[in-house]
Structure formats: structure tokens, C-alpha cells
């Protein structure tokens, strides 16, 4: 769907802002919002550009930078921390060769930290796009990343 088509599925009321931003972002392989997107959305909802930019930068699920095909979000909240998320974070930095907030050169992975994902029963946990991977240890983490690399 094009941006214009997405916009048309919503009423022009400001309470639809978050939903519209979600849809536009999800619709792109690089999972991000451009200045042009924000501009068009602000016109559509009759809001200022600054307001829409303010909202897009407030919420952690939105990004104004292009991201990789697989967005890895590592939970670092206390329950995952207790069960070893620091090891998971360090290992990911090593395997992928990037720091938090960065994307691999091949565009396959973006590494992000996140607060509790609500799946603490299987801590330590990560989310890759909309899928949860839990009960992680180095071995399982390695397998998960390898699997993602294979399905290019």
C-alpha cells in the first residue's frame, strides 16, 4: 500500500496519529519514517510538522533512521537482567559486530535495547520483528541468528 492509500483508511482526526505512523512504518522494508512521511501525515491530520515529529520521537517503536530487515530488540529490564540479558547483549554485539542503535552493513540486522516485552516467563528474551525468542543462552542465540541469516 502506498502512503496515500494508508492515509485514506483513516479518518482525519488526530487520535489516529499513532496508528497511521505504525502503518506507514510497518509498510516499509526499512521500518522507519522519513521527513516526507511526517510532513504528509501532518498535512493530512492538520497538525504541525513539529507536533508530529515530537510524537514520532517520543515512542520507542518509531524510528527516523532506516533500520535492518530484522530488528532485534533485547529486553534489559530487571527480570531479564537477572536471568542473563547482559550476556545476551554482549554476545549479540560480538556476533553482529555492531553496537546498540546500529544496523549491520548488509542491512540484515538492527540492534536495539528495550524495556520489558511482557514475556518475562521465558527470560532472558528478545524480539525479532514481531516474534519472541526466550529462554536464551549463547547456543540458542547463535542458532536463532544463523537461522535469520539463512532466510535472506
Amino acid at each position, binding site marked *: 500500500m502506498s502512503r496515500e492509500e494508508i492515509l485514506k483508511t483513516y479518518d482525519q482526526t488526530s487520535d489516529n496519529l499513532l496508528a497511521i505512523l505504525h502503518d506507514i512504518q510497518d509498510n516499509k522494508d526499512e521500518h522507519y519514517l522519513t521527513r516526507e512521511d511526517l510532513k504528509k501525515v501532518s498535512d493530512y491530520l492538520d497538525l504541525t510538522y513539529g507536533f508530529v515529529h515530537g510524537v514520532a520521537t517520543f515512542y520507542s517503536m*518509531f524510528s527516523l533512521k532506516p533500520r535492518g530487515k530484522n530488528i532485534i530488540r533485547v529486553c534489559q*529490564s530487571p527480570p531479564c*537482567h*537477572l*536471568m542473563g540479558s547482559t550476556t545476551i547483549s554482549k554476545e549479540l554485539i560480538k556476533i553482529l559486530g555492531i553496537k546498540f542503535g546500529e544496523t549491520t552493513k548488509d542491512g540484515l540486522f538492527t540492534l536495539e535495547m528495550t*524495556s520489558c516485552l*511482557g514475556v*518475562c516467563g521465558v527470560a532472558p528474551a528478545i524480539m525479532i520483528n514481531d516474534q519472541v525468542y526466550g*529462554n536464551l543462552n549463547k547456543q540458542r542465540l547463535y542458532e536463532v541468528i544463523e537461522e535469520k541469516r539463512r532466510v535472506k
Partner: protein
Amino acid sequence: MSIYRAHILLPIDEGTIQSGAIEIKKELEKRIEEENLKEEIKILETGTIGVIGKGVMIVVYPDKVTYYNVTKTNLNNIIQEHIIKGRIAEEVEHSYEGHKPVEKEYKNVGLTREQQRIVLDKCWKIDPESIDDVLAYGGYRGVEKIFSESISPEAVIEEIKNSGLRGRGGAGFPTGLKWSFTRAAKGEEKFMICNADEGEPGTFKDRLIMEGDPHKLIEAMIIAGYAVGANKGYIYIRGEYELSIKRIQKAIDQALEYNLLGKNILETNFSFYLEIKKGAGAYVCGEETALIDSLEGKRGYPRIKPPFPANKGLWQKPTCVNNVETLANIPEIIYKGSNWFKKFGTEKSTGTKVFTILGHVEYPGLIEVEMGTPLREIIFSYGGGIKGGKRFKAALVGGSAGVFLPERLLDVKMDFESLDESKAVLGSGAILVMDEDTDIVDMLFSILKFFAHESCGQCSVCRIGTHQLLNLIYGIRRGQAQEKDIDQMVKIAETMFDMSLCPLGQSLIMPVKSAVENFRQDFLNKIQNKNN
């Protein structure tokens, strides 16, 4: 519709998925097909059973036998013995009646122990995506009762008041009273909002309620909307909860089809519409006024109270905000009566509470037990005790803004009053258990990092205070600190308590103070290491 000889229920949650539930389901379907049992046996995906440490589970109905740690290999045994020959597959770990194990060794430990379930009662028994299934299991009885007996909104509120139900979202405010404020507020248009933002670390009960029994929430919203005088309701669900969003949407669509939602519900003159709003990742949006701002499409900044949402909420109109678990109690209270509900729990904390048990325990997962159940029983009996036979050190109770409880407080009863007496909070019901090897400084560090990340930045004392605390604990962790830094942390948290606008900044005093008071030695060890 065909009539099946037996149903095989397959509870799906992140725990069972991680253990391979999807593959087991495929295998199960294949085997049932191979044995030519498709006409006789129905396989049903349900919500959580609440047990996380026991791999993939299946429940065979009507025999009510639950099998644990199901693998492709022992699945065959279950099919041969139980499904084909009709006797229990003794070799596979199992229990009867779902949660009532007969096997001696499981009798008193583990999440499989008998629980009093009100909120989660249907979760693992029904197909959450089928309204017919829900109706067959007594769904929407509360709504039906109200309309068939023409119970007035005021009477509904009285009933909830009398039940003693208090908010499960953290603050424990009496639900009936809250409803009466919104009902009494002046204004033509009012709104009912369900807070399903669930961002509290260690908490995932609301998600499992929405995934396992979404219609219960719809029913509760109808009742709440009717009581407070709202014709429009919103369910604000955090953005990460894809499955919850999908299931709630499906439930809304089905309820519309059955005229349980929409114009003139069940041919009465009450109309009620429901809409989902999806969050986008901000813990602070769980605070009710921030949630309202977010719902309006803004940054989620907590508002100054008063005015309270009951008078000026969504679009400055009278609004009532309730947590998912709070609402999930409503249909049964209405159907069975407040006196029935009051039989559970304590005098001032009635009913049950869903707790999530996490960390160093044998069986992490969620349980629903009566309010007032001792913490020791929850950890050692339901949670199976400390993993690997180690010693208990602390439990962080109530979420990230909770309290580190030491061993001497293990007998505290888990209800609002008892916890308050021990200077603790029930919060969201998260219980994070730490064994003897845990470093409390490291855990507090993780909490402070969380808060520094999630402070919305609106008030300087919280924005700066969270970072100052983080810097201090960095120093302590590295052994580059002095003893006075420990007390400085408490002072900063106290200032934040006094001066922050919302409970996010105010509540940091809980973990900071309890960690320092109860586990000072952990801090001193770090500091003294430097001098060695």
C-alpha cells in the same frame, strides 16, 4: 456441527511456544489424521494454563487429564493409550482436573497446584477466537443478567462497591467508587477506557487474559460502559502485543455480529461501541492520564491531577480508566453477586490476584490465588522453591517500582493492607525471586537504568534525578564510591518523591530505600572492594 468424542486442548503461550508447541500441534494433527480420528477428536488451541516451566502441555477433555513436557515421542504414547485405548498414559507426567494433580509429588508444589480462579478460569478451556465456545462456557452471562433483569446502572455500581473490588493496575483504588465518580460527573458524552498498556517489568498477566479469554474483557467493558454512562469505549493495548490486539479485534467483531456490541445491545436502548488503540512503546503511557494523552494522539505526558479523568479525561470529558485484570473480575461479580466474590481474599482486599512468579524459582509462570496468600507459599509452594536448591535472598515484589523484601518478611500476606504494613506494595503482582548469589546492587542498577530510560522528561527532578541515581550506582558498581553515596541515593529518591509530578518519579524511593535498608552489606562490599 459435528459432535466430538474428545477434545485435545493445546494451551499456547510464549512458554509453550518456546518449547515447541507449534511443532507438537502439527504432529498431533498429523497423527490424528493417520489414525482416522478426525471425525472424533477435535484439536483446540487455547490460552495459557499458567504453567511455564513444564514444556508443551495438552489437556484431554472430557477426561480432564493434563499432560506435561509433551514431546513428539511421548505424544505417540498419549495417542495410543489415552486417545485410542481410553486409559491414561501413565508414563507421561500428568495430572487430573487441569490444576488438581493427583500424583503425590506434584500435590503441593508447582503451578499445577489447585488455584482459585476467577479471572483466568476459562483461559485454557475455551477457543478464544470462538464466541460460540465462550457462550457455551457461560460467557456474557453478566451482561445478560443486567438486561434481562433490568438492573439499573446505579445498582450495578452498588454491587461493585459492595464487592470490595479494588484496582489491579497498581494503585488499588476501589473500583465501584471510581465508577460512581464518572457516573456523577457532568457531561453528555463519557468514555470508558481499558488500560492494557502493561509495561511493568515482570508483568504479563493482562496479555494472557486478553489472549486466553478476550470476550471476558469485552463483556466487562460493556458492563462498565453501561454503569458509568459511556457509549464509547477504548482498549489501549501496548504495541508489542500483536496477538492480544488480533484476538481482541476478533472478539469485538464477533460481539458486534451477535449484537452484544453496537447499537441497541440485545434490543435494549443502550448502545456501546469499542475500539482498540495501539501504543507505541513508552512505559509512562500506562499512567492513566499519559495514556489518555497518547490515545488523543499526543506524546504520553502525565497530566497534573486534579482534575481527575472522572471529570476531565479523554477530550476533557468524563472518563473512567481501569486495568484489564480489574475488569476481568466484573462479569462474575455481576453474575454471581458481590457476596460470592467477598468470600475470597481478606476483608479489605477481596477476591483473587494474579501473580507472576519469576527469576530463580523452579516453576516460573502465573498463578491466580486469593488475596492474602503468604508470599512464602507463593514462592515455595506454587513456584516450587528456589532453583537448584539454593537459598532465598530477596524478592522484588510489585514490579520495577516495587520493594526488595528480605527473608524475614517472607511471611507477609499478599494483600493491599498487609503489604502496606511492611512498607511494601502489591503493584502489578510481579514477584521476582533472587537466590543467594544475586547481587542486589546489580539488580538496583537494572531498575535505575529502566527508570532513566522511561522517565518522560517532563519534570526536571525526575529527568535529572534518574540520571544522577544511575551515575551514583555506576560508581558503586565500579568500586569508585564512598559510603555517603549510598545515603545520597536515598536522599535523591526522597527529593523525587516530594517533587515529581507522577508516580513514576515518586515511586523510585521504594526500590532504592528497600535495597539500601535491607541489603546495605551488598553496597558496602562493592565500595570496600576498592580499598582492598
